[in-house]
Every structure is written in structure tokens, then in C-alpha cells.
């Protein structure tokens, strides 16, 4: 199975999951502040370098995980200049939306690559989320790669019966997708059902209070990292609203 988590010894791996969850959330909020590629492009590379140096996830690995987004990026960059004038500005906005998408995916991926499933649940729960939700989120995240592969297999099976998505207009294409969506839904529901039986048979939810085998505690380093992240985010807020940097108006006044 394809997995996001890469077991390594790095600063990001050792960081408390709560700090990483907050950091990822703030990072995503920060990129939503800006729409100027002049800010967004360097920001993307900064996160890439953070992943490589602080998380020991090579740039190549990070790129491999972003690769599936390439078609969306290309479409975004191609479509904006068609619907927006002047065209050059359209290209600019296409680039800026793509960068946001890529950075969003990159941040999520870095969180998943440097935090084990158990730590991730623990982090969410300790941040105040009910543990059923914590488990739901982390299981869903874990199943994304599996689902991705399953969709690939189903598409292969249908292609072997002469199925082609590429043909036809939008409506025929959408209808053709049912050939993939229905088997995908059935298989996922089956997995979900099996999972619920597995959880129940291990008495999940039997007691309102729950014991965690592992405990996590914030170290001094974690507090420093948290302070640093919040500080950087405040700086980003100030740059955007105090100094008015990094924003281009899309709708001409």
C-alpha cells in the first residue's frame, strides 16, 4: 500500500503533533492571504526546503506526491487567460491559483509524511476534538492512497471493456464516470463496513472515557516552535494588511 508516513529521524518528526497541526493550519491560512505569484512562488519553495531540511523528505519525494496534481495545474493555468482579460493578468492568476493549490497539498503532505497515524489522532484529540472524529479523520487520510489505487484498478478494468472517458462531450463524460464511481463506492463501503466491525470487535466506543497508551507532552522545543510559527503567521498578516503586500485585485474597479 502507498503510505504518506515516512519513518525518519528529523526535527519535524520529533515535533509535537499539536504544533504540527497548528503549524499546517496557519500555513494554509497564510497562503490564502496572498494571491500574488511573486509572494506565492517563493513561499512554495520555502515550504519545500523546510520539508527537505527539517523533515528529511527529499525534494524528489515531495515532487512525486505532487505529480498527480499536474493536470489540474495545467488546466488552471490554461483556463484563466481564456476567461480573464487582459490575458497576461489571466496567466498571472492561473499561476497564483495553482501555487495555492500546490502549497496546500504540500503542507498537508508534509504533516502526513512526518506524523504517524497514532500521533495524528492523539494530536487532534488533545486539541479538543472528540476521539471518534480524530480517528475518522486519520483513517480517512490513511485511505486516500488506497482509494487512489483502487480507482486506478477500476478504470483499468473498464478500459479493458472498451470504456473511454476521453470521448464525448461533458454530459456523456459525466455519465461515463458512473462506470467507475459505482464500483468505487461499493468497494469503499465494504471496506468501511469491515473496518467498523473490526473496531467494534475491539470494543471501540464501549467506554466514554478512553485510555491512550502513548501520552504526548510539549517540550521546551515544541513551545519555541509553536511561538515561532505563530510569530511568522502574525508577520504574514501584518505584511498583507499592514503593508498591503502580496495582493493583486482580480476585479478591476
Amino acid at each position, binding site marked *: 500500500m502507498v503510505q504518506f508516513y515516512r519513518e525518519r529521524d528529523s526535527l519535524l518528526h520529533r515535533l509535537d503533533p499539536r504544533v504540527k497541526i497548528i503549524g499546517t493550519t496557519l500555513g494554509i491560512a497564510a497562503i490564502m492571504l496572498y494571491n500574488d505569484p511573486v509572494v506565492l512562488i517563493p513561499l512554495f519553495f520555502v515550504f519545500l526546503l523546510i520539508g527537505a531540511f527539517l523533515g528529511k523528505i527529499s525534494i524528489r519525494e515531495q515532487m*512525486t506526491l505532487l505529480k498527480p496534481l499536474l493536470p489540474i495545474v495545467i488546466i488552471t493555468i490554461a483556463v484563466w487567460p481564456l476567461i480573464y482579460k487582459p490575458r497576461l493578468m489571466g496567466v498571472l492568476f492561473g499561476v497564483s491559483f495553482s501555487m495555492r493549490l500546490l502549497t496546500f497539498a504540500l503542507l498537508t503532505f508534509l504533516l502526513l509524511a512526518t506524523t504517524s497515524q497514532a500521533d495524528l489522532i492523539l494530536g487532534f484529540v488533545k486539541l479538543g476534538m472528540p476521539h471518534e472524529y480524530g480517528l475518522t479523520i486519520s483513517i480517512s487520510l490513511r485511505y486516500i492512497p488506497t482509494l487512489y489505487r*483502487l480507482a486506478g*484498478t*477500476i478504470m*483499468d*478494468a*473498464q*478500459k*479493458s*471493456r*472498451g*470504456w*473511454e472517458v476521453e470521448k464525448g462531450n461533458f454530459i456523456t463524460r459525466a455519465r461515463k464516470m*458512473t*462506470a*467507475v*464511481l*459505482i*464500483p468505487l463506492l*461499493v*468497494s469503499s463501503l465494504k471496506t468501511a463496513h469491515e473496518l467498523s466491525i473490526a473496531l467494534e470487535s475491539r470494543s471501540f466506543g464501549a467506554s466514554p472515557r478512553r485510555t491512550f497508551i502513548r501520552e504526548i507532552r510539549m517540550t521546551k522545543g515544541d513551545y519555541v516552535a509553536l511561538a515561532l510559527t505563530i510569530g511568522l503567521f502574525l508577520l504574514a498578516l501584518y505584511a498583507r494588511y499592514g503593508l498591503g503586500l502580496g495582493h493583486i485585485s482580480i476585479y478591476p474597479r
Partner: protein
Amino acid sequence: MIRVKNIHFTYNDREVLRGIDFRMGNEIVALVGQNGSGKTTFAKHLNGLLKPTSGSVEVDGLDTREHTVAELSRLVGYVFQNPEHMFFEENVFREVAFGPKNLGLSEDEIEARVRWALKAVNLEGYEERTPYSLSGGEKQRLAIACVLAMKPRYIILDEPTTGLDARNSESVIETIGRLHSEGHGILLITHDMELVLRMAERVMLLKEGRKVFDGPVEEFFSLELGAYGLDRPELLEASERLGAGFVRSVGELMKKLGGEGVDGAVLP
């Protein structure tokens, strides 16, 4: 004729197929090897689902790189391991009709093909049933019918009997035998050595993406199979101990023993 010439294939940096040559006509070839040896990856090259990184695959003269999977589906049928991965229609009839519809055939021709394919797998009378409501063996046979309705010359089956009970797998095996006698070339991917012994005429053995054996079944079972993580079928062990040599079925063993069993009892 399927001709595979020195194909290599790489999945993100990992070379999964490392130079395989292969030819196949109207025979039953078993494709065996340990988990991860590249069997499925190899088979996906034969109908163009994967294109080789280098080398070439030709099916009846068509180079798979120059044709879409849809075009090649008229020549090579691929029955996936899990039949549920293809079912999405409300009934069996429509499910089987899906492939021929994609080929753009006329209503009459589609109907004729569906009836014919369902008959070929012994599922007549199931037209109105929901695919998901069938038993394991019936689902597998329906999956075969779906592919058969494309009238392919060659049929690939990926572990068709895995997870089926004895009776269900028997019905699938029977179907495979029938297709072969009607002139289809069959590539059977399996871990079941009993099945190989019983059905295959030729065996190709893969190990870590390389072909380590390709030849008649009899020769295959004379290999030191343990070295490849495979077991010899009990029937062969028994027959050799009885001095009857290579046999492919209990019936054949009995015949070789002169129709006489223990205490001289005459066996069928």
C-alpha cells in the same frame, strides 16, 4: 499471435519488468511467480493498459503503443482479479452489454453477443439478476462473460479461482477449458499449482521481473520449485511414488495404473 520483445517496465524508479520475451498463440499458458514478481504488470502490457518503457508488444500484428486499450479490447480480454471492480449496471444483461456497446455495435448484434456470452459461462436465465447479488463463482463467470462479449481472441485471467470454494472454482475451470477448446488463447495468472498442472500446456515463471522458465508443464514440474517459493502438487508426488511418472489428473493416474487400485479394485 502475441509477441513480446524484450520489454522493460519501471514504476516510479523501480524496474518491475527486466527484459521479458514471450510468444503465445491459441494455448493455455500459466503465468506463475511469487507475490510482487511482476505477473500482473506483465499481463497489463498485453492489452495496452501499460506500455513498455522499452521493448515492444505486438498482438496479431498491432503494436500496443500505437493503439488504445479500447481498440485492443477486441483482441485481448482481461478479466481482473476482483470481479466487483467492474460491476455497475442494474442487471446482468446490461452489464454484459456494456462492452459491446462501447464497440458501437448494433442493438441486434449486442443482444446476440450477450446471449452467447452468458451461455458460454453457463449463466443463462440470470439476465435480470443484480450482478452484486450473485455468488462468488457466478460473479467470476459474469466477469468472464463481460470480457467474452468483446469476442477477444486472447483472454487473460488474473487469479480467477482465488477465494472461491471447490464447487465455484470448478465451474470457472470448466468455463476456461471450454473457451480454450473453442480456440481462444488463454493466459492464466495463478498461485495454484494444482490448477497449473490440470489446465496449463505451458508455464512461464517470473522472478523479480525476469523470466526464469518458459516451457511445457511437464518440464516445469521437474524444476526445483521450492527455490521459487512454490509447492509441487500432491497428485504429482503421489503419482511419482507409485511409479506412474507425470500425470495431470487423477483419472490419468488411474489409467496409467491400469485401472487397478488398492486390492485390485477396478476404478473408473
